[in-house]
């Protein structure tokens, strides 16, 4: 344990139990002895709706080896429980913001200590008290003001369709029922690399002659990551908007680009009265891959990163792999940590907007750790299917010095490359 220099006390005279100690003992260091177990700290967490299971930890430690944050730093549910038991104030602690809600701990936890419920509950309290890292607070404000965490204009939400090269139907304009309502979400609508994937997906849907439409400028962020980062109020407001909007239109299914949106539609919107049959775009495409007219053979070795919110959270592991393997010439190589055991990119649960904050707490970014693993497989391409990942992994490829060795592509970008369009 490091010695906090500010805690060193120099005493002129030190008398312990009536015995005067010699001068060299007069230098007192910070408290080492546990003088109390302040149960209020833990009680404060377990009394929150959603926080109950924090008190269930029996310190088996199984969460620590699979915690992506502990892999690059010092963290994990077992440690959080222990610190709480020792009186740590999680509501005012940096530890509150490290969890990416990747769910790897819950997967292995025999007691079902559920950080996916605990973290938003405690964070919500911290948010209400204004104890939020600045960079995250900025994103909350941008989302509130602009309808998306990137702070882009709401009117420009569908601007990407002008560059798609194919017609992209917008529900408000076509005024008819569709089979598939494509919920595009923010990063695929605004971020440069997200737009690349959206354009690619639009071309695929076009070739497959899918009867679909998007919400365009009417769509707002699902805010699932903001919810997990503690902004429950924002989430509910936006959810009500989206539910109202979706109820205006007729469609059979929602298809989402973003696994975080999938999570919101599947698990959170029903609680607010929004019941929609929702699938991820890889789930939609997998059975249709054989209908595509591929012109090119891609001689790539591809490794695939399972998004936490597609795989562990929502159980879809096969569809992205089926899509990749259906591309002519592609060889899929798995990383050691894949499927249920997949490592986290660091973007979930608000992590997307906490990179600066996290830099002080980790040896390397989670995305860097993951990119190194991808490079080790010998793959040429790291394939992804979550809009958070493209930019995170491309940055990590550069920062780990792997430029030229590995490229990052959304699965739909690979498909379009093989289609030769």
């Amino acid at each position, binding site marked *: 344990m490091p010695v906090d220099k500010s805690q060193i006390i120099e005493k002129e005279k030190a008398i312990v139990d009536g015995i005067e100690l010699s001068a060299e003992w007069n230098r007192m260091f910070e408290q080492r*002895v*546990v003088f109390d177990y302040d*149960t209020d700290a833990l009680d404060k967490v377990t009394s929150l709706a959603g926080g109950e*299971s924090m*008190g269930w930890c029996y*310190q088996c430690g199984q969460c620590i080896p699979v915690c992506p944050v502990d892999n690059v730093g010092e963290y994990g549910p077992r440690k959080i429980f222990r610190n709480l038991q020792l009186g740590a104030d999680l509501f005012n602690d940096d530890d509150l913001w490290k969890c990416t809600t990747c769910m790897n701990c819950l997967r292995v936890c025999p007691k079902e200590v559920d950080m996916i419920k605990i973290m938003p509950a405690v964070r919500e309290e911290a948010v209400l008290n204004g104890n939020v890292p600045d960079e995250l607070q900025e994103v909350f404000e941008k989302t509130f003001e602009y309808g998306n965490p990137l702070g882009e204009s709401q009117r420009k939400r569908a601007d990407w369709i002008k560059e798609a090269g194919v017609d992209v139907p917008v529900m408000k304009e076509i005024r008819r029922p569709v089979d598939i309502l494509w919920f595009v979400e923010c990063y695929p609508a605004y971020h440069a690399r997200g737009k690349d994937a959206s354009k690619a997906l639009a071309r695929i849907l076009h070739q497959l002659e899918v009867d679909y439409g998007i919400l365009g400028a009417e769509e707002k962020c699902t805010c699932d990551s903001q919810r997990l980062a503690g902004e429950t109020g924002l989430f509910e407001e936006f959810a009500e908007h989206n539910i109202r909007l979706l109820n205006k239109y007729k469609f059979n299914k929602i298809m989402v680009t973003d696994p975080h949106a999938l999570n919101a539609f599947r698990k959170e919107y029903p609680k607010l009265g929004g019941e929609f049959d929702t699938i991820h775009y890889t789930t939609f495409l997998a059975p249709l891959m054989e209908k595509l007219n591929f012109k090119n053979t891609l001689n790539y070795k591809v490794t695939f990163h399972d998004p936490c919110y597609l795989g562990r959270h929502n159980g879809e592991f096969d569809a992205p792999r089926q899509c990749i393997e259906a591309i002519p010439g592609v060889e899929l190589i798995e990383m050691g940590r894949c499927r249920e055991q997949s490592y986290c990119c660091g973007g979930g649960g608000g992590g997307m907007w906490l990179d600066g904050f996290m830099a002080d707490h980790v040896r390397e970014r989670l995305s860097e750790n993951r990119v190194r693993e991808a490079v080790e497989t010998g793959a040429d391409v790291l394939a992804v299917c979550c809009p958070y990942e493209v930019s995170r992994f491309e940055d990590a490829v550069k920062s780990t010095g792997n430029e030229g060795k590995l490229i990052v592509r959304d699965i739909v970008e690979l498909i379009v490359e093989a289609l030769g369009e």
Partner: protein
Amino acid sequence: MANQNILIIGGGPAGIEAAKGIAALGYKAILVEKRDRLGGTPDEAQYAALTPDFRDTDEALGEMMAPVLDNENVNILYNTLITGAEGSIGNFNVKALSLGKEIEIKAGAVIISTGFQHFDPGRETQKYGYYEHDDVITLTDAEKMLKAHNFVRPSNGEKPKRVCFIQCVGSRDRQIGNEYCSKVCCGIASKQSIEIRRLLPDCKVFIFYIDMRMYGYWENEIYWVAQEQHKVNYVKGMATEIVKKGDKLLVKGEDTTLRRPMEVPMDLVILSVGMEPSEGTKQMASVFGLKQNKYHFIETTGGVLDTVSTSVPGVFAAGAATGPADLEDSVSSAGLAAMKAIAAVRQSQKIPA
């Protein structure tokens, strides 16, 4: 002619269960009890509720003993002590002092269910100051207070605000000589902690342990319930000494997962004492010439597959006379002992006297 009666020594849960089984199968049981009532240690030590189901001890034991109290096949001899034994399987002649008078009991087989006694934490070491501090008590002491629904600090009669249990007192200890785990103390401490929290919702309860040994359903029925619903604080690391500080007790030990010393104030400390063979168990081993293990419990000869046969044919042991046992163990082994004792007298009938 071989005798078909079966002598049961000790009227606790194991003895009662054995008598019930023997009577139900149409054989005669002679149940010898040194006290003037049945129920054994759970009754004598005034257990409040049973572990793990929280059933009221008096009610549960009352229900259990009712069939033997008025049963023509069960002859209960109260205030009776066994003093000597002769003979062998099929023909045991046992001497006893019954209500001060010498009597002789004839039996074809014998079941010894003389149980255990609670470890006396002042016996070997004064580490925890059990004899010194009024507010250092044992599980047994706590049980009595819980039964009376009056859980207080013995020193001043006030309700405690902070209570801790120290596990493995008198168990798993080479120096004391009790190397075994007493099996039940983790569960009983957890059960008591739930009872304390129910009785005194503002009282914080801590359990300092080496490892929690909550086998089988005790895990989910006691341990998880204590931690998850009653917010009992489990801290891995044992207290080593207790010193008085003002009117509090300063419990000193190491929080092992933190690798830091701890000195935490408590109002009441409960020592989770384990099991030792009772005096009766040791005496009966000597009277019948039974092999004992190094801890002086009666040794069973069949390993894990026969938990009741002793080194003397026709003599069986049930319950905690053979080692630490919970109530489930005790009644299960009692049933097995009853079955084997009946088999022994039936078999010995075929052998000429």
